[in-house]
């Protein structure tokens, strides 16, 4: 083997290393670019009024825009709507998802459980816009109107498979001895699940719930067909309601309101990233 060939091979190896480092580093660019843009254009909008006042009407925004004044109002209607719909969705999705995940973990060899497991993947991969259509057919049409309930049903359908998956996986990696000791001490399966397995898996399940919430909080398409949006701060669940991502979509489509878009996006982005980081931190802590 001659020297130049070895040199070439070593050079290739080095080139590859640098290439990979460079390209991998480049993927951080969009994150920084998006964070930077939203932060720079949005931070000065965050004020008390921004979180406590509803969105202005097109007329008020237009007048303010023409006069060159800052747009009055905020996104309180969206924040309230997001919280209401998310709250309702979590209340239903968490128990359902955890029980379903427990069933899959307990019966991992069972045919029915395998089937359900496949369908969970399927549901998780279903585009959110289709969840919107389905909720429209199931809830909006029979109720004869858009509502917060419909919006939360859509969010719930999207959260369930995520929670099922995380619960199932967390329970499966618990040491089998845990369950065996519980059973040997005379507990029945239900007691062992409630008193031993679920508490032991709590960290993982909680992380999963946080991630599920962060995943659906930014969903826009399904809410367009279900919650519709509303410019009032509303607490009723059978009426159209707004949500932060819906407001961003509204602002995107209205140049008079466009100034508000960055503040709203910053709020949503910080919320989602905070949830993500918390989940990651908890997962790490729980793993130790």
């Amino acid at each position, binding site marked *: 083997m001659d020297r130049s060939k070895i040199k070439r091979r070593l050079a290739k190896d080095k080139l590859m290393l640098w290439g990979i480092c460079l390209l991998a580093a480049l993927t951080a660019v969009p994150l920084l670019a998006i964070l930077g843009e939203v932060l720079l254009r949005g931070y000065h909008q965050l004020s008390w009024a921004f979180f406590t006042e509803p969105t202005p*009407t097109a*007329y008020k925004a*237009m007048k303010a825009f023409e006069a060159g004044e800052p747009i009055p109002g905020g996104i309180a209607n969206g924040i309230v709507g997001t919280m209401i719909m998310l709250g309702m969705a979590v209340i239903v999705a968490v128990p359902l998802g955890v029980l379903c995940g427990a069933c899959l973990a307990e019966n991992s060899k069972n045919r029915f459980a395998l089937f359900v497991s496949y369908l969970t993947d399927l549901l998780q991969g279903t585009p959110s816009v289709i969840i919107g259509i389905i909720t429209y057919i199931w809830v909006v049409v029979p109720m*004869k109107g858009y509502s917060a309930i419909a919006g939360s049903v859509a969010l719930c359908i999207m959260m369930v498979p995520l929670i099922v998956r995380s619960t199932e996986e967390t329970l499966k990696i618990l040491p089998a001895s845990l369950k065996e000791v519980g059973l040997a001490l005379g507990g029945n399966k239900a007691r062992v699940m409630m008193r031993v397995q679920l508490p032991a898996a709590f960290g993982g399940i909680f992380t999963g719930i946080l991630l599920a919430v962060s995943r659906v909080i930014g969903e826009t398409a399904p809410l367009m067909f279900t919650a519709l949006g509303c410019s009032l701060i509303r*607490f009723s669940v059978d009426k159209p309601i707004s949500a932060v991502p819906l407001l961003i979509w509204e602002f*995107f*489509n209205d140049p008079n*309101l466009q100034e508000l878009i960055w503040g709203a996006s910053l709020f949503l982005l910080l919320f989602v990233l905070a949830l993500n980081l918390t989940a990651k931190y908890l997962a790490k802590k729980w793993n130790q």
Partner: protein
Amino acid sequence: MKQIFSSIMTLAVAIAMASCGGNAKNGAREAQELSGAGATFPLPFYNVVFENFAQVNGDIVAYGGVGSGGGVRNLRDKVVDFAGSDAFLTDKEMAEMEPVVHVPTCMGAVVVAYNLDGVKELKLTGEVVADIFAGKIRMWNDERLTALNPGVALPAEAIIPVFRSDGSGTTFIFTDYLAKVSPMWKEKFGAGKSVNFPSGQAAKGNPGVAGVISQTKNSIGYVGSEYAFAQKIPYAIIQNAIGEFVLPTAESISAAAAGTIPADTRTSITNADAAGAYPISAFTWIIIYKEQNYSGRSKEQAEATLDLLQYILSDEVQNITSEVHYAPLPAKAKELSMENLKAVTYDGVAILQ
């Protein structure tokens, strides 16, 4: 469940009203919450009107700017008290629904807005506009454009038409005009709330189109006049039916309604052959059911709906139209509408005496 919540809601509204220091002047009935949906074209005007109405009458009106197509669908599904539409219902659409009443609320113009560096004034004829949107005139320095605009430096760049991605009364007004002035347009594309434009790019709602135009060099699009005014986007001077080049103003829009108006007010006033008329002018309507007892609506709600419409037709409201870049209704249209409202019933009994 639904009823419990709506009664809680009404209670909340009542409390809010009471705490507003007796703003509710309507002694005859309780304050109502009305909901409507539809056109974005008159949205800023409706915002002002509904806010004033809430102060004068105590009734709250929630209006969603979902586009004329969406508004009419919501009315057909009977989930709203009224629909806003820039296009009157066709005979076919009317035949598929229970009887409705059209009430014009104001007049407006669709402007042809553009984004061209350094071009302050652009003159266009109807046929040229049709050919641009049909993709036949592709470049800004096309000789038909330069012939109309001597001395204007039009760039050698491709024209980017911008249009609506949703069903829209604005699209109807615009294509109705194009179909009247261009046989080619009538045959190939026709007039409607949604038309298959062959090239360019689409955006949602009037404001969305205004936004894309202001963000895209060398683009041209059609929007409700107030959105172009507010965004300070320049718009073209259009040649009308008698050959004058006219800018959209309250006067030139009003001039378009000089002709006769049918009893049900369903009429198109585009390409009007009156002197000084802006050719892409139109009425915008609120559409309600003739029989107001549907989907469990109360008589009070029906009364509130009619109060609202009468309020809109009043001189007090019509005078503020031009303030928000619209034009007031001609007297004839107001008279006809008042007459039409008398035919509106609740359980078969006329609501207005």
